[in-house]
Structure formats: C-alpha cells, structure tokens
C-alpha cells in the first residue's frame, strides 16, 4: 500500500525538462546513468523518479547533440561504468534551458496567481 502511495505522489516530468535536469545534474561532475537517476530522485525529495526508458534515450540523445560526452571509468567500488560529462556546448545549452525554464515558471506563476499581480501594480 505504501508503495502505491509513493507512486501517486510522483509528478510526471514536464516535456523537455528531463534534458535540463540531466545537464544540471552533470554540472557537479561526471556521473553514470544510475547515479544520475539516483541524484535526481534524491534532490527532488523522492518526488521525481526518472524512468530508465526515458533516462537512457535522453542520455544518448544528448550525446548525439554533443552536449554530453561519455567515457568508461572505474567507480568508487572499483567497477567499470560509463560516465557522462558536460561539454562546453552542453554548458551553454544548460544556460539557455535555465533561462527558458525561468520564463516558463514566471509565466505559469503569473497565470496561476493573477490577484497578487494586480495587487502589486
């Protein structure tokens, strides 16, 4: 029962936001696929759970756009894993996505709480 509850609390990711989240996550350093999904889940307080069926296509998509690069490295537990790293182009892309995201948030906020807007002006 508890598990079901957890699923209901989860929020569907907005179209196009996954790429941004991945790029954001990689800002703090190279990471492998499992690490990225764990990181997103942790930072969102268990609310955002990235499906593997979306994560890996997204990673490979970012790879073909050359926004991330990948290499095989040893993990902390001394095992091989594929690490993704942000490229210069990826950093630029992240900035522009961040700007877009803020625009969206503002716009949506404006729609969702119009009264306050009126009060301010």
């Amino acid at each position, binding site marked *: 029962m508890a598990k079901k509850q957890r699923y209901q609390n989860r929020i569907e990711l907005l179209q196009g936001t996954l790429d941004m989240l991945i790029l954001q996550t990689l800002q703090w350093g190279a990471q*492998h*696929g*499992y*690490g990225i999904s*764990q990181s997103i889940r942790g930072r969102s307080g268990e609310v955002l759970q990235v*499906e*593997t*069926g979306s994560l*890996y*296509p997204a*990673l*490979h*998509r970012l*790879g*073909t756009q050359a926004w991330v690069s990948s290499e095989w490295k040893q*993990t902390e*537990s001394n*095992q*091989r*894993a*594929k690490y993704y790293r942000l490229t210069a182009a990826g950093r630029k892309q992240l900035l522009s996505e961040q700007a877009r995201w803020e625009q969206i948030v503002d716009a949506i906020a404006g729609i969702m709480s119009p009264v306050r807007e009126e009060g301010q002006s």
Partner: protein
Amino acid sequence: MSFWNWLWQRKKREADLEEEIQDHLRMAAQERMEQGLTVEQAHASAAREFGNVTLVKETTRDMWGRVWLETLLQDLRYGLRAMLRNPGFTVVAVLTLGLGIGANTAIFSLINALMLRMLPARNPGQLVELLHRYPGEPRMNGFSWHSYEHFRDSNHVFSGLIGVMPSHFQVRGEGLEPEAVDGEYVVGDFFPVLGVKPVIGRLIGPQDDQMGAAGSHVAVVSWSYWKSRFNLDPGILGKRIIVEDVPLTVVGVTPREFFGLMTWSRPDVWLPVAMEPAIGRPSRMTSGRMGLGLIGRLKPGVSIEQARAEMSVLFQFTVEEMTKNSKDPLWRQLKIEVAPAGAGLSVLRDNFAKPLLFLMALVGLLLLVACTNIASMLLARAVARQREMALRVSLGAGRFRLVRQVLTESLLLSTTGSLLGVFLAYLGAKALLRIITSGRQIVELPARIEIDVHPDVHVLLFTAGVALLTGVLFGLAPAWSAFFSASAPSLREVGTAGETRLQRLFGKSLVVAQVALSVVLLGAAGLFVGHLWNLQHLNLGFRRDHVLLVTLDPRRSEYKGEQLSRLYQELLGRMEAIPGVRSATLSGATPISGAGASSFANVEGHPEKPEDRRYVSLNWVAPKYFQTLGTPLLAGRDFNYQDQGGPRVAIVNQAMARYYFADGNPIGKHFWLDRDWKGFGPDKTYEIVGMVGDAKYYDIGEATPRTIYFNAFQEGHAPSHFALWTSIDPENVAPEVRRAVREAAKTIQVAQVTTLADQVDASIVPERLIATLSGSFGALGSVLAAIGLYGLLAYTVARRASEIGIRMALGAQAADVRWMVMTAGLWWLAIGIGIGVSVSLAVGRILQNRIWRINSADPLTLAAVALLLAAVGLVACYIPARRATKVDPMVALRYE
C-alpha cells in the same frame, strides 16, 4: 564513413549499451543489498524498477539515428529466416508471383515498346501523323507528292511537315560487300524538323531536296551501319557508296539512338526523296504511286483538334485528286485523321494495341488472383504464427514494428518473385514478339518487323511498382492480423481463441474473391477459345487440309508471257504425276494470303447507281482450281485449256450470282469490268460459264466477297502461285515438287512453299495467341483458386479438429462430418461463382462488340466456366472434408 565501418561502430555501441544497462542493474542491486535485502530480492527489485530492458534498448537505439536502416536490416533478416523456415510455401509463393509479375512485365514491355516509348526526337509530344481512312479499311499514312506539297505550303498549324518513304536498297561500294539494306527516302526538312543532330558530318537538308533538279547525290547512314561496316572510322565522310547503281556521297551519320519514326524498323540509309526518280525502279514518284508518310510538328499552342479541322479542309485536295483517277464512289467518303505520333507511327499500334491491352487486363486479373491466393495462405500462416507474434510483443516489440515486420516479409516475397518475373518476362516478351510477328505480312509494314523490347527504365519501374503493390496487397491481410494478434491478452490464450470472427470472415472473403476473379478470367478465356474454335471450324468454302502451296519466281528466267504459260501447263502435268498428288492448279491469289485484286463490274442488264457500286474480288485461276481447293461447282462448267483463243469466259461465286441475278442463275450472262491498269474495259465482255460456292478471299473473318474468276491461261499471263491437293501429308510431296520445278526449268526459283492450313493459321495469329494465353492464364487462375479453397478448408478442419472430435465421440457419422465441412466450402464456392458470373456478364455487356466481333457476354460459355470451376472447387473441398473424418476423437480431445 563506409557501411562496414558504420556497422562495426554500431556493434560496439550495442555492446556498450548492453554493458551500461547491466551496470545500472548491478549498481541498483548492490545498493539494495546494502539496505539489507537478500541477493535474489535485490536483483528482482532492481529489475522490477528498471522495467522492460528490451524496450529501453530499443528506444535508446532510436536516438542513434539511421535506425530505419538498422530495423530494415533486422526485418530483412527475420524475413529471410521466415522464408527459409517454410521452403515449400516460399517456393510456391515466389513461383506464383514470378509467373504473375513476369506475365505483366512481358506484356507491358511490348506495350511500352509499341505505344509508350517516345521517339528519339526533340519534343516528340508535338509530333502528329496524318492518316486517311477508306470506308471499312484500316487507316493509312500514305500520301501523294502533290498532296504533300499542298499540305506543306497551305497549312497554318504545323511548324514543319515532313514526309518519309521506307524502301530497300541494294548497296555496294569500295570495301563493301553488295547487300540489301533497309532505308528511307526523306524530304529535306526531315532531320531539322525532328531536331536530330548528326554525330559527324551533316544530315540531309533542304538544299539536298530540290524536286526536279535531280536532287543532290548524298546519303546519310545510321550509327550502327557506321559501326558495323566502317568501324566508326570518321573517314566515312565523303566516301562513295553505290545505291542501286547510283553513286552517292556519305555526308553524315545519325545519332546512335535514332532509328527514324517507325518503331518496327531500323533503317541504315537515308536519301533525299528527290533522288527517288533516279534510284527507284520503277520509280514510285513518276508512276504516281508514291505513298509518302506524313508527320507534322504542331506549332506551339496549336491543339490537335485545330490541326484536324484545318487538315480536313486541305484534304479536299487529295479527295479530288483520288476521285479524278478512280470511279470508286467510296473515295468521296475518304476521311483524314490527325493522330499523335510522339511514340512513333500508328500502323503497328492499330494492329496490336487491342490484343495487347486486352492481354494486359487478363494478366492484371491473374496477378490479382495470385495476390489473393498468397494473402490467404499468409493469413492462415499468420494465425499459426500468433504465438510467435505474442512472444515478440511480450518481449517488448511494438504493434507497428510487428506490422512493419510482416510487410517486410511480404515485400521480400514479392521482390524475389519480381526478380524471377523480370527474367521470365525477358524471355516471354521476345517469344511473344516472335509469335505476334509470325503472322502474315501487314499492309504498309515490311515482312520483317524489328522491335526493341529490352526492359528499359519504364519497364523496370513498372515491375518495381507492381512488386511493391502486390507485396503490400497480399501483405495487408497478415499485417492486419499481426496488428490485432499483438493485442492478444496472454501467451496462453493465443493458440486456441486467437482468431476473431472478423478475421475468419476476411479469410473466407479472400477465397470468394479468388473464385470470383477466376470465373472472370476463365470467362474471358472461354470467349476467346470459343472464338478461335469458331474460326478454325468455320466453313471457308475451301479445304484447308491436304493442300500444298508453292510460289515460283520466274523474274530471273528467260520465260515470259506465252512461253511461261506453256511452261506452267507442262509443270502442272509434272506435278500431278507426283505420287500422292491428286490434282494441281495455279492462281493469281491463294485464299487468305492477304493479297488479291478487285475492280468494278458492269453486269449486262443490271445497271447500278454510282453510289451503290462496290468492288468485286478478282482471281485468275487454272483449270481444276475448284477441284483442288474443294470449292463446289454449283452450276455450269470449270475452265479448261480449250478456252484459250475462244470467247472470254468467267466463273462467279454464289454471292455474286445472288446479288446480280434475281433467279440466282448467272450462266450465260455477260459483264465487263471498268477500264483500269489491268487493261479491262467495255470492249472485253465475258460470258459467265459457271457458278461456284462462296469461298473466303482475304480474311476468314470477312463476309464472302462477290468474286469473279478468270481463266489464267486464256488471259495469257500465268500467275505463279501453285496449289496441290494431296492424298498424303502435303509437306511430304514438297521435295518432289522442287525437283519437278528444277527439271522443268532451271532458271525458275521456288520462292515459297507452305501449306494452306499454315497460311490460314498465319492470318489469325493474334486470335490464336490471345486464346492460348488467356486459356493458360485462366487455367492457372482456377488452379490457384482451387488451392486457396483447399487451403481454407484444410485450415478450418485443423482448427475445428477438437470440435469434430467431440462430434464424432458423440456419435456423428463420417458422412455427417464430411457434409458439414463440405457445405461450408461449397457455400463460399457458390458465392464466388455467383459474383464472378455477374461481374463477367456486366463487363461483357459493356465490352459487347467493342473487342473484335465477339459476343462478349455469352451465357453458354459462362455456364461452362462456372461448371468447370465448380468441379475443380468440389475436388478442393472434398479432400479436406475426407480428412476431417479421419480425425481421431481421442487425440483431438486430449489436445487441450
């Protein structure tokens, strides 16, 4: 990046992805173990969280790009595997398709060569030809020089009007063996108007074609002539060749792809038409018998209708010219036509378009039957493959992926089939062409017709289109089935309940369609086989068997006139002495050779209004002609040798007698023929001394013409067509006949030996071809339909095995079971035949009398076809029905 390099990278990436996913699973499991789960629990949980590995891989791969090629390769691999798994089915399907597509391609390549391929000229769509039509005869493109000049100088619709006249030339020259080559006389504007540029040198131009100024002594040769005789030596320019004893200078070579305007010939030499009076022997220009083929190039913006309107006005000139020279009232009804000539002149099209288009429709039908047949086989197989499909779905394959997979398999089948088809078509088109051109010579066409039927881009595109269409057509049913089987709830349920009512109905309607299509196909075939049978058993008025025809050529001998007559009389005696020969005779024309003579008769006491006058056919025959040909002498007497020097006598046929004489008795009546080039006239009156039965003259399909026979020996010019009535196989006396001729006169050559039966057959080559082809197509179609019916029932029996088992366990008799299975099949058979018959009747009514003179909605033929198909269908139903009774109840029950 090369393909192999790409493929290698691809493999590496694939391995990378696999490892990446395994790492993910391992790390997830590890973390869970650290949280205190057991190894099994941790792995299970990690896998659960990860989800469908195959699906993740597939969607990830989609991000790599060029995936369609990847999946296509995979689909092809699966498809090939599926084909090899069922070699029997694959062979049958590929053969069926190969035959179907091959037949379509073969017919199409003929249609392409004759009707579609554009002439190698600039802007061929603007070219039109002028044709005149004499009532009741095929249209012809042949005009006098005066008409040409008149049209050329007075019209406002053509930017150029050109004339061409095919001919044969004896050509020799320095380093050239004397040989006969095909060539053409052309007017000066010919090449400029067509927009043909020379490969080297220059082509004939207006300056070469000054009528009356004897023309310039120049010739242009074809590229192939240049290659084969001069080895592409540029030194050919300025070379002197001698054409029929007239020396000419070669001034240029036409481009390789240029062959003139007639798709059926490959001329090697072109001469200015102004040279004709010097070269032609006898000159057709000076004797006024020149038939110039006229081709115009429409001015931009001028429609063919406008050209038609103006030409009908200008054509009055030709009509006046014709009527001045002939008393034939029908010349007044002569009409001019203007037809598109972008694909070459129309003579060949007019002769073969109808049979070819009809055959095209037939092979199209055949291919449709083949498609439905393969579709129903694939459908039955698709049901059997539902387990496989369900397995794939549960392994993560999407619905559309399955549909694509099934369609790829169908296309693989149709592509393999079409490869076989192209190969068969290549052989078939050549064979077809040989058969088509094996008939007797067509007026206006040379005896030897050369048509290039090699598969060009159009043909290959056509075949590719057909392959694609058929692949999709017969692939739709199984693809549809795959689409729905993908929604099968679970693997376990698939085997038993997998097929929906709708799917079953679809499978059955495919079989119904096959039966219906076969009825239409067989119905059409039946009509033509019947038509041919009628032609072959028609009472021609003469015997076709046991008659040998021998044509002699006395032109290079010293025998002339009276001398030749005497020689031929002696020869007839020698021929009759040959064992096995019953009688021998000779005549000016032999029946159904396609040649003959005609004139207007003036019968004493029976004046005719000018507009009622019709040509009567004429023939000059020796005594015993009627006896040899088996035409009955109804009244009076036969010719004899004593007629020579006596009063002029003639024999008429019954059609002539009935028309002119109320009592039908012509004996003792007199007539004379119009004065014309044969030297007849009112001063030559003939007495009718005999009447013979009606016999066909030009064509076996025609109404018997009124015919007058003259005594060949009385007229003093003995024709060279001998006919021998034999008691043994006529071919067997041919060597003796040749020897008799050699012994009688060494200088006389035997030009041709054939049998009357062969000559008659040669006149109905298209009819025979269509009957044979449509018959075999129809047979093939009904065999396919029978296979389809059999397959459906056999499959039904297999599917209902347990039900049948239960019925038998409950006491049903073998006969009951048999009846149950058979009625199911017979219903579909009956519906199919019903639909087929009604479609045939409807189509037949539309086509009534449009295709030849055949009753195209003959209920008797259709009834026979329906019966035949019912019988075949009955057998196809009976075999599975009998097998149903062999179902062992215990085995069937245990099965579930």
